[in-house]
C-alpha cells in the first residue's frame, strides 16, 4: 500500500496536497483498495464553500457507496472531470490522475490538524484490525 510523504491525510482516508492557498483532495490507496473497483464519482459541490469534514461528493464502487469528506474548509474550485469517463483512475493512481477536487483553502491553520504520512500509516495499521 502506497502512502506518500508529501501529502497530508485524514482518519477517513482522504489526502490533501497543498499548493499555495489551493489544494488537491483525493482518497488514499488504502481507501481505494477497500472500496474495490470504482465505477462512478459524483461531485456536485463545485463553487460551494464547505466546512472541514463536510461531504463534498460520493464515490461508488460496484458494491458500495461512500461519501468523501473535505479534509479542511474550503471552496470547491474544480472537479477532476477525467473521473467521469475513467472513475477507475482512483484505483489505478489514487495520488495522481485520481485526484477528485481542487479547493481553495479558506482556513490554512486547519492543515496542521491533519495526519502526516507516519501518523496515517499507523492509523491504517490500527484500523485494519
Amino acid at each position, binding site marked *: 500500500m502506497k502512502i506518500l510523504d508529501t501529502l497530508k491525510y485524514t482518519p477517513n482516508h482522504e489526502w490533501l496536497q497543498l499548493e499555495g492557498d489551493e489544494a488537491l483532495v483525493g482518497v488514499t490507496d488504502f481507501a481505494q483498495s477497500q472500496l*474495490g473497483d470504482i*465505477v*462512478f464519482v459524483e461531485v456536485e459541490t463545485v463553487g460551494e464553500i464547505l466546512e472541514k469534514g463536510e461531504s463534498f461528493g460520493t464515490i*461508488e464502487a*460496484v458494491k458500495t457507496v461512500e461519501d468523501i469528506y473535505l479534509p479542511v474548509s474550503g471552496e470547491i474550485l474544480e472537479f477532476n472531470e477525467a473521473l467521469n469517463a475513467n472513475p477507475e483512475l482512483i484505483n489505478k493512481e489514487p495520488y495522481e490522475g485520481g485526484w477528485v477536487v481542487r479547493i481553495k483553502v479558506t482556513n490554512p491553520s486547519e492543515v496542521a490538524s491533519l495526519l502526516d504520512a507516519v501518523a496515517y500509516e499507523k492509523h491504517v495499521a490500527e484500523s485494519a484490525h
Partner: protein
Amino acid sequence: MKNTAFTKFHEELGAKMVPFAGYNMPVQYEGLIAEHHTVRKGVGVFDVSHMGEFWVKGPKAFDFVQYVTSNDVAALFDGKVQYSCFPNGKGGIVDDLLVYRVNEVTYLLVVNAANIDKDWAWCVSQAPKFGLTVGKELYNASDEIAQLAIQGPLALKAMQKLTDTSVEDMEYYTFKKLTFAGVKDVIFSTTGYTGSGGCEIYMANKDADNIWKAVFEAGEEFGIKPIGLGARDTLRLEMGFCLYGNDINDTTSPLEAGLGWITKFNDKKEFVDKAFLLQQKAEGLKHKLVGFELIDKGIPRQHYPICNAEGTHIGEVTSGTMGPSVNMAVGMGYVPTALSKADSEIYIEVRGKLLKAKVVKLPFYKG
C-alpha cells in the same frame, strides 16, 4: 465462523475474505470487474461449499419433495435438476433451491447457506406428515459436502479433461455421478447462477484439495481464475436471477417475485400454500418484481426507494449494481403491477434525488 474445505486456498491466493452467512468466504481476488469478465468470457471458479445439501430418500421421498416445493417434481427424471422454492405456509418463501432427482426414491435438495438452519427446521417440521425419519430418510449433509461452481463458456471444455464421462454435451440443468480427477462419485451438474454456462460439482470434503488443484491445472490453458462472491452477485443480477434475502424472502410471494414459472398448480400436485397462491393469482397481483435500468447517472442500491413521476414512494430497490457486462446501472425491485410493464417510467431516490429509470425485460445481459 465456519471455514470451507477451500478456505486455505483463498487465503494463499490473497483473496479479500469476508463473513458471509456464517462462513469465511472470498469476496474478491484480483478485482470484481476483472473476475466478472473472466466468467463471461472464459472460465472462473467459485467456492460454493457454503451451500446446504439435504438428502431425501425412501418410498415417500417424492411425496415429501412434491409437497414442500413449488415446482412439479413429477416433471423430473433421473439426472435432471429443477429450480424451485419452499413456500412458507404464509404466502412467502422459506428459500429458493435446486432439486436433484437421482432416482425415483432419492432426491438432493441444495439450499442457500444463509438459510440452512431455517430450511432444515422447516423440512424437519414437514417430515412427520410423510413418515420420514429425520437423520435417515431426511438427512442434512451440508457439513460433509464441498462444492465448486466452475462457470463460463469454456468451463465444460476445461472440465472434460478431468473425466472420461462425456460432459461437454450435457443439457442445461442435468447431472451425472462420475469419476472426476480420479475421485469417484462426484456429482457433476450443468447448473450455476451466472448465466454464462458451466457446471457445479459436489464432492466429499476429504476430496476437496485434490479436486481444487486438478480443476486449476486443467483450466490453466483456458485462463481459469478463482472468482469471489462480489462477481457472483453482479453476474446473477445481470441475469435478473433472484437472490434470497434481497429479492425474495419470508414475506414475498413467489408469484409477485416472477417465480410463477416454478409454481405449478397441477391437479395432481398438492403443496404448501397452493390454495393461497391460487387465490392470489385469481385476484391478480398487486406488486411485481421488475428489472430496471437507470437512465440518469447513478447507481441503485438495495433499500433505495422507488418512486413514481410524482415522487410518491411506490416500492423499494431489492438489488442494484453497475453491471460490468451490460455497462449500465441496473436493479430490481417491487413496483405496483400498473408500473411493471417494460418501458414504464419509474424513479429511484438516490440520496434525496430522484433519478429516472425504466422498467425493462429480464435478463439485462442477453449474452
